[in-house]
């Protein structure tokens, strides 16, 4: 016998999923006026988890009105210290119910329980703790004395980190005194509805947080709503552009966190074993459904061969399968649409002459899966080097000199993140100055912390989330005359 890991599934007993969910408006769960629903599905089993409500125009109106009322009457006049109290409560409740959130996230999204348990949920709680700390210290946010909230924020989040993206959006907005209407992605709404329960449990005043479920139409209604002062969107560049067009000519503020095609650059003096781990974390974390994923590996040519060999050896130990199993490394692809998109781009890689290698792993019969895939002999001209795949697919390119690495890394319409692997500190600093990306990791990849601002260059979006810089997205400075003229302060 060899050392096989017996199944170690996380228990489902801790979560109870209702057969159907309403919308969370003004502190209460309400069903939409016309009763339209859609199903949310477990991507690992294709089983229906629950029926979700699709918010229509009158639901969106109700949510925005509730947020406006609560902004005017409660949240904007409450002291920062009191707002902090609620945020601390929410943070603690997220920690207390961490296991429940982790299991539910894994069921609805398909990500491995190891990640939802060790990364998504703890980081979500950390964002609330961090921003709770800011709520009574906004005078020191670098925006002048007594910066004011914007009003009602409409927030639209993606399906790759449902709870974590919710936390990135709601925590700073609330800390700065805004109220929110949040729309989760249509395939991953369950943890948002559980979060709504946490808002009730924390006695958060009704209307401060409103959560409406639905697809693109619901999102558009929210974006176009007159009662919204600010839109914060995380998702695809395509949708981001359409949002930009939709609100052009209005007073709405906008922050966008969009796609990426990050370069992960490995020099010949890198710690190779740890670089291999960083490559794996960079592109196979969360099945590659990460906007800042290190999807373009740039290897210095002198070490390309040995690094690729080491990478392939390492990928053979990745465990794909039941996301609830505590030993699973690679979970399910969130939706068949996404899987098709990944397959289409993999096919383009084949067609354009890149060399494909797929990690040997058993694919379960049910559910949507994609084995870790590595393309070598990729050039800058290939689609798989230019387009965001948003899946576990790595494109490997080579370079000869640091200048060439910078040139290739920057030669993309995106600019969200980049990674540098070298033991030479001066080169890290030089590279970081040359790279046009919002987040640059050195000798690590895909590390997140609420104190560190996150956001993009170019088509990866604008505005920052997290850190002191992230507060500016939800505040107006005291001397911001344009906003004062708008009368929202």
């Amino acid at each position, binding site marked *: 016998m*060899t*050392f096989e890991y017996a199944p170690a599934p996380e228990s489902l007993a801790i979560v109870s999923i209702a057969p159907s969910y309403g919308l969370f408006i003004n502190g209460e769960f309400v069903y939409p006026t016309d009763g339209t629903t859609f199903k949310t599905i477990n991507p690992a089993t294709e089983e229906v988890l629950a029926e979700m409500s699709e918010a229509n125009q009158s639901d969106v109106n109700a949510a925005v009105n509730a947020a406006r009322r609560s902004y005017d009457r409660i949240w904007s006049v409450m002291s920062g210290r009191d707002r902090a109290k609620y945020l601390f409560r929410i943070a603690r409740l997220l920690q207390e119910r961490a296991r429940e959130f982790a299991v539910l996230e894994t069921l609805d999204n398909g990500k491995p329980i190891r990640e939802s348990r060790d990364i998504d949920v703890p980081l979500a709680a950390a964002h609330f703790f961090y921003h709770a700390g800011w709520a009574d210290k906004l005078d020191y946010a670098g925006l002048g004395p007594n910066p004011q909230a914007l009003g009602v924020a409409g927030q639209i989040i993606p399906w790759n980190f449902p709870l974590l993206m919710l936390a990135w959006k709601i925590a700073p907005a609330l800390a700065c005194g805004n109220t929110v209407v949040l729309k989760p992605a249509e395939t991953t709404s369950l943890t948002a509805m559980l979060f709504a329960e946490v808002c009730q449990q924390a006695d958060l005043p009704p209307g401060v947080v409103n959560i409406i479920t639905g697809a693109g139409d619901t999102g558009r209604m929210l974006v176009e709503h007159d009662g919204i002062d600010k839109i914060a969107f995380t998702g695809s560049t395509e949708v981001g552009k359409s949002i930009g067009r939709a609100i052009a000519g209005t007073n709405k503020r906008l922050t966008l966190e969009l796609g990426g095609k990050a370069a992960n650059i490995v020099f010949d003096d890198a710690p190779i*074993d740890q670089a291999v781990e960083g490559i794996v974390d960079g592109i196979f974390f969360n099945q590659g459904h990460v906007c800042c994923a290190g999807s373009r590996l740039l290897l210095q040519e002198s070490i390309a061969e040995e690094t690729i060999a080491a990478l392939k050896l390492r990928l053979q130990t990745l465990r794909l399968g039941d996301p609830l199993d505590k030993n699973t490394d690679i979970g399910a692809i969130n939706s068949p649409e996404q899987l098709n998109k990944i397959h289409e781009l993999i096919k383009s890689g084949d067609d354009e002459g890149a060399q494909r290698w797929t990690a040997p792993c058993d694919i379960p019969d049910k559910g949507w899966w994609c084995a870790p895939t590595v393309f070598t002999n990729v050039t800058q001209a290939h689609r798989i080097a230019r387009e965001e795949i948003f899946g576990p697919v790595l494109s490997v390119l080579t370079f000869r000199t640091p200048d060439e690495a910078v040139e290739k890394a920057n030669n993309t319409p995106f600019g969200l993140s980049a990674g540098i692997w070298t033991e030479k500190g001066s080169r890290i600093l030089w590279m970081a100055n040359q790279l046009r990306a919002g987040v640059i990791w050195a000798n690590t990849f895909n590390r997140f912390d609420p104190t560190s601002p996150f956001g993009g260059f170019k088509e990866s979006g604008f505005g920052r989330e997290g850190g002191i810089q992230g507060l500016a997205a939800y505040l107006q400075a005291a001397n911001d005359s344009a906003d004062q003229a708008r009368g929202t302060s």
Partner: protein
Amino acid sequence: MRTIAEPLNTTSSLREFLHGLPGVDEVGVKARATALGTRSIKNESKAWAIDMAIRMVDLTTLEGMDTPGKVRAMCAKALRPDPTDPTVPSVAAVCVYGDMAPVARAVVGDNLHVAAVATAFPSGRASLEVKLQDVRDAVAGGADEIDMVIDRGAFLSGNYGLVNEQIIAVKVACGTAHLKVILETGELRTLDNVRRASWLAMMAGADFIKTSTGKVPVAATPAVTIVMLQAVRDYYALTGSQIGVKPAGGIRTSKDAIKYLVLVKEIAGEAWLTPDLFRFGASTLLNDLLMQRQRMAVGHYSGPDYVTID
């Protein structure tokens, strides 16, 4: 690919090779250790791992107060760890000071390996001649495995040639006995040093590389073991010969032992999951493994009085 160039026996040629090895990022290694530490080993996997861990133990006593009586008792335990359960396998070896090797050999016969620490263990501060005599005495006394220490002073001062010469000389003195080279990673401090010392020992003829004497504050850690497992994996890829790894000191619980087996499986590979290529240098670990084994058999803990203290 990396190759071992022609004779690496001078300090300068060794330095060139060892300092040409890729660096080790300590933060990254620790993150990997933490991630692998979350592997959940249950049911039949756990039962398998516990038995494998028992079979990998070098049951050890290395005290100034060791007596023939103590060594005999430990050897009896090594042969039959749980007198109430004949299905419990024997450990891999007993590990004693050289002067106790004859006592140990008399008890275990040909059934177990007898490992003896030698070369002025644990500090290694003696002349080469004294070290070699220490080895010869242990081998003559019946030891078939020698656990030597490297000269950390020479290593840290960059005198790789001297460390290399001593390992080669000890290897000759060992004759047919297997040579385990103790790096004393708690004194080497950096993981770069651990990687370099591992390669130095392997190239000089080590059959095993071992973390620690157990006599300095920091003994085996998952991070150090990861670096050593990477070294034996890479050395195998380069030369085709498999070198063993022995973490020693500080591994006291079944849970820890199983974590080490996970490291072996996922870093060096399944081929290293054998007592010929992986050992635990431990004393109290065995009883914890036995208690876990009993618990898995009967469904509850029996308590420390249901395992023997020897």
